[in-house]
């Protein structure tokens, strides 16, 4: 007769998805061990008890076949399709001839392919392996920052490192920080103080980089993870109060601080939308007022038409309907990721999804608010659609991680 090991081996033999084997084996072993123990207590000797326990389990083939059906890897097409559509939308702002952005099209093809490849790789990759390298990810992010801060090139005052075709930029650390902090919060259960210190180090780096949009994205990610983590409500409240106090104190200090007039103006822009860059603001408001349903190609806007103001360009050239469709695609991506969150109960997986969701939502919502003049104009690219590797890659990391978790939802 067969032993427990044989039985489980037989069941596993029918399950094609190798990643599901561990959890099935663990569960069945537990059951059979308990069952064997019960038979032994009933006076069976060890071999007989084991045989009896296996016998009671019934047909291994049947069980294996049904478990195989359940644990087949699944692809969330309702997330993949809008992702591909959004990636295709990144070509829209490059097409109008007035913007003379045709050179970018070839590069954008490469970027889109890289983005899709990253998402597909992450989908196949078992995200559970990431948890072990949370600390490594954090250290790697810090090392990258040291390289970036000693960089040899700069765009718009933001420094980065360039060696031939290789560019290392500050934003590349964001996915690393996301994975690292998700691990810290979910698995390593670090104390509040060490987490604060780890967060503060990141803040310091982003401040040195003087890139406000990255700093706020980073803060949004860590804050979301913190609120979703298993810290007590008391801790969460205390931290929120402390940070609000810090923020108010900082603003208050600026009110009374002896600042140069130009510094004062720059500071005021942080909480007064529209004060900072009157040219941009004026431009946005004129374009927004002159929008038509199906678009017109009259005005050109050189600075950031395909990056920071990509939604505005789409609205202007292709019309309100096209703009609304693009926003709907992005909204559906967010909805779908949030939907996945609804049935994942693994804490680490939840935090990974939430972190990705947080920065996607922030960037999209910020951009829309910016067009309506509700928030200050800031360089905040839209994921997938803005031109560049940064919006594409960050978006595909979030999508890839979500797909990876969705694929494994039956056994995590």
């Amino acid at each position, binding site marked *: 007769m067969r032993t427990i090991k044989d039985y489980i081996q037989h069941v596993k033999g029918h399950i094609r998805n190798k990643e599901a084997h561990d959890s*099935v084996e*663990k569960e069945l072993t537990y*059951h059979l061990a308990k*069952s064997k123990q019960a038979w032994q207590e009933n006076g069976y000797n060890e071999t007989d008890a084991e045989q009896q326990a296996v016998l009671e*389990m*019934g047909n*291994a083939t*049947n069980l294996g076949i049904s478990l195989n059906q*359940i644990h087949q890897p699944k692809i969330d097409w309702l997330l993949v399709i809008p992702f591909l559509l959004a990636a295709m939308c990144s070509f829209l702002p490059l097409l109008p001839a007035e913007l003379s952005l045709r050179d970018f099209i070839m590069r954008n093809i490469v970027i889109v392919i890289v983005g899709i490849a990253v998402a597909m790789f992450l989908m196949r990759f078992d995200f559970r392996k990431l948890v072990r390298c949370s600390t490594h990810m954090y250290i790697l992010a810090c090392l990258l920052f040291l390289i970036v801060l000693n960089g040899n090139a700069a765009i718009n005052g933001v420094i980065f490192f360039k060696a031939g075709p290789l560019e290392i930029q500050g934003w590349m650390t964001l996915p690393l920080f996301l994975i690292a902090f998700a691990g810290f919060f979910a698995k390593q259960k670090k104390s509040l103080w060490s987490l604060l210190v780890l967060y503060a180090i990141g803040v310091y780096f982003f401040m040195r980089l003087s890139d406000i949009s990255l700093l706020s994205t980073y803060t949004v990610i860590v804050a979301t993870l913190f609120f979703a983590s298993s810290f007590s409500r008391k801790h969460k409240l205390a931290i929120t109060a402390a940070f609000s106090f810090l923020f108010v104190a900082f603003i208050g200090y600026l009110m009374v601080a002896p600042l140069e007039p130009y510094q004062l103006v720059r500071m005021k822009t942080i909480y007064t939308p529209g004060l900072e860059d009157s040219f941009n603001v004026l431009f946005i408001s004129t374009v927004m007022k002159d929008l038509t349903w199906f678009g017109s190609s009259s005005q050109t806007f050189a600075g950031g038409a395909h990056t920071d103001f990509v939604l505005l360009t789409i609205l202007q050239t292709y019309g309100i309907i096209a703009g609304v469709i693009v926003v709907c695609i992005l909204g559906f991506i967010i909805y779908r990721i949030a939907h996945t969150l609804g049935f994942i109960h693994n804490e680490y997986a939840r935090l990974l999804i939430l972190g990705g969701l947080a920065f996607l939502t922030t960037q999209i919502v910020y951009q829309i608010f910016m067009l309506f003049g509700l928030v200050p104009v800031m360089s905040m690219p839209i994921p997938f659609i803005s031109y560049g590797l940064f919006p594409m890659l960050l978006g595909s990391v979030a999508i890839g991680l979500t797909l990876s978790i969705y694929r494994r939802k*039956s056994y995590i």
Partner: protein
Amino acid sequence: MTETRFKQAMKNQFKKVQFTEKHREAIRKGIHEEFSDQMLLSMLQTTRTGYELTQLLYTNNKQTVHLNEGMIYAMLHRLEQQQLVVSEWQENEKRYVLSNKGVKLLTKLNKETQKLPSIQQLLKEARYAND
């Protein structure tokens, strides 16, 4: 002798009662109560491992589980995929419990079962019909 009298009595008693399809279904359900999702769901109102579930089924004298304990895992994993139950690992045990969706489905199923007339009700109807 007694038997024929009993049969006679039953015939008279049930003469005026309509034995509908609904009654038939209720009785069929009562006779072979199969191992259904509903049963498993109702046992998962508190968190349980698969092993505990099989033990519970033995004590409730359900023969389906005998020599077929493995199928409970196939069912549990399927229910989990349908999001009717959620699971959690505690050390080496995987414990299952109803999700919100599962609770809703169970209440719905229970209501449907209650609608089916019981055998007691059938007897009552017979009495009223004769009175």
